[in-house]
């Protein structure tokens, strides 16, 4: 109900916002930029969420700025292959990396073969925020986090299927906070994790977006929202922070260039990305993907990554 109103309303809001913002936001770029076609280097294979966002951004950059922009996929190690390669790019700003929170805040602390940290890059901003949630099949004896924790306490343990390392860390943190045994079941991809939860093989699952349609259909219940704010599709469900945990797992799609990129060009690219994320075409697409078109901006992204990197560095050191 709520989201259908959102869907109808958002183009209007976005158009108004765009009309107001465009004169102020028109990117100020050096006269000779760009000195050739611009590559958006995506750290994941074609077809995934990050890829579709990058492709949308590329076509909008092309439309709005008149640049030639193309997408290159460099999958591997959650964006690690791409980010490592991006460090070798020159200062002309023709190579832009598109990765995720995992690429920049988890990878460096997970593996010895990653030789970069978030500090080696300069950030244009973010393109999308995912609404992570702890959810379960309807009809279980628990329908919120407190009841789920009580259930786990009574039974001695509860299983939670997780499709990625950051979800697993979230589950371990919840378990530690409440002092119960929650067992993360590592699963390849969130879709299979969802299948196991729907089949009743696990007690709950952490999901990004795939569960939203299930919640709408009444087949699943959101136990807790893991992001810092409540999810639009589950307005009744409390966040972890509201439950008393000092924990919020946010996932962002991040646009970045190597640190040594010319500073004028950095400003130009940051402004160009802001123009993209505020366009109505872009926000429409985000609504379809059940995500928020949030752009933290250059400074916001840097401080977000600083905090997130510290969190994961500590979590993974254990």
């Amino acid at each position: 109900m709520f989201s259908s109103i959102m869907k109808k309303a958002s183009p209007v809001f976005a158009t108004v916002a765009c009309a107001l913002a465009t004169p102020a936001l028109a990117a100020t770029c050096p006269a000779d930029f760009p000195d050739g076609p611009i590559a958006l280097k995506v750290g994941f294979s074609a077809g995934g969420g990050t890829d579709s966002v990058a492709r949308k951004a590329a076509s909008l950059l092309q439309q709005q700025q008149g640049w030639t922009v193309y997408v290159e996929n460099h999958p591997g190690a959650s964006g690690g292959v791409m980010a490592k390669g991006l460090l070798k790019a020159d200062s002309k700003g023709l190579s832009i990396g598109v990765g995720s929170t995992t690429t920049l805040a988890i990878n460096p602390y997970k593996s010895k073969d990653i030789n970069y940290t978030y500090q080696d890059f300069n950030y244009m901003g973010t393109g999308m925020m995912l609404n992570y949630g702890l959810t379960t099949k309807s009809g279980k004896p628990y329908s919120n986090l407190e009841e789920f924790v009580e259930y786990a306490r009574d039974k001695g343990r509860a299983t939670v299927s997780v499709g990625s390392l950051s979800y697993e860390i979230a589950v371990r943190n919840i378990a530690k906070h409440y002092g119960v045994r929650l067992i993360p079941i590592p699963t390849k991809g969130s879709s299979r994790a969802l299948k196991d939860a729907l089949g009743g093989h696990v007690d709950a699952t952490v999901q990004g977006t795939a569960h939203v349609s299930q919640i709408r259909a009444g087949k699943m219940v959101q136990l807790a929202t893991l992001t810092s704010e409540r999810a639009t599709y589950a307005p009744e469900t409390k966040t972890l922070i509201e439950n008393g945990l000092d924990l919020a797992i946010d996932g962002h799609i991040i646009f970045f260039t190597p640190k040594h990129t010319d500073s004028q060009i950095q400003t130009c690219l940051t402004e160009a990305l802001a123009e993209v994320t505020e366009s109505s075409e872009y926000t429409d697409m985000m609504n379809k993907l059940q995500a928020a078109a949030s752009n933290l901006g250059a400074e916001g992204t840097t401080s977000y990554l600083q905090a997130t990197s510290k969190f994961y560095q500590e979590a993974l050191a254990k």
Partner: protein
Amino acid sequence: MFDLDLIISGLANAMTLTNICYILAGVVIGQIVGATPGLSIIMALAIAIPITFALDPLTAISFLISVNKGGTVGGAVPSILINVPGTPESAATALDGHPMAKKGKPLKALKYGLYYSFFGDLSSDIILILIAAPLAVLALQMGPVEILALMILAFTVISGLVGNSMIKGLTAAAFGFLLASVGLDPATASPRFTFGMLDLYDGLHLTALSIGALAMSELLHGMVNTRRGEKSAASIKINSKSKEDSHVSWAEVLANKFVAFRALIIGTIIGAIPGLGSTTAGFLSYSITKQSAKDPEKFGTGDPRGIAATETANSAVVGANLIPLLTLGIPGNIAAALLVSALMIHGIQPGPLLFEEQGELVYGMFGAMLIANFCNLGIAQFCMRFWAKVISAPKTVVFAAALLLCLTGAYVADGGTFAAFIAIIMAVVGYLMRMFGYSIVAFIVAFILTPQLEESIIQARLITDGDITMLVYHPIAIALLVLSVASVVFLGPRGNRKKKAKNVTAGDEKNA
């Protein structure tokens, strides 16, 4: 349970002009590739997948399925005409198809192949359409413990059926096992066999690996056997002067209806079991038909029953293979695995939720499959003589062009130059395996199944808390494990006994 609106709108979606054009194009491409010796249909699919990025999902899937169907029909052509299987699954077709062609009836043999292939494919598609939807409801019952049992069953069935030598077959499978463990391990995400190379973190790319091991190794094998100045041309002349020798009547087709029906059942069952494929179905159906015949000595001399048994079975697999794919998300063979990657690229996750989330697309896909079957029949009827011409292209041209296409396919499909290197290395490995008689099929199938097996072991252990008595709560898993034991006990030794018995009969015949 069935939503009729959804079914009708899905089928209507398949009937658009664009879609039909792509289906026709797919069938033609599939038939050409299948009919060209050395080019595998897997490769055609791998190369076609990036082309479909720009299409809408239904058109893309229709196109790929049509390529697959076209390839199955086209593959029989070189098997029959020059005894070189265009695709591995048509290898058994050569056993009786080629002798019939040598007797001066090449067109008759080709038509037999086509009609039975059409029958097998169409019937298994109908079985898929009728049974896959209820199966999807049951699929949710397959949790990690059940999937683990299913994987164990798949491995036991493979080990019983693949290769002449059990030791070599198992060695090849173990090699697949080993290569599949490259990358981050699924439990703790620590790197294995990555040698500090980030490119290896996600493991070896399946497409690059299969292009190398299946297609490029086949090309290398062909090149090694080609001598300078040698001309490649079909050794058989196609004469259509005698109507008797170039046509197949209804009565002749119906004469083998029991053989074809049994082959359909074998093909559908094997297709529905993940990990087994058309090649196994073709050979199994052929050997069962031969052993149960009153006059087994006629097989191998151009008996239409041989063609009927093989072509019906290997084509039935094409449709049935989609049953585990659409319901469980488990690809039945490499072609289905490539189809999975195509679906994922379009943001569609095959699995138990597919019918719920993409019902219209699934029924559209069913519509496209039916259309593709008829296109396949029509085009093959019309172009049979042309396919024979493709066979006679000089090897020097075909091999060089095909190698280039393979490398491009690996490069485009999976991760750039790194994938191309994987393909080249695997081509050499595959060639050596071929030379020394190690089953590449066992190797690839093991490579595909291992990650799922490993993940299920980890998950099942965590879910049951390491307590094996928890199995009591998983009756499906128990049933599957019992089946695995049964397949080890009955399939393995019994197969050998039959082989021995056959050898004895063959010996007796010689003595007589």
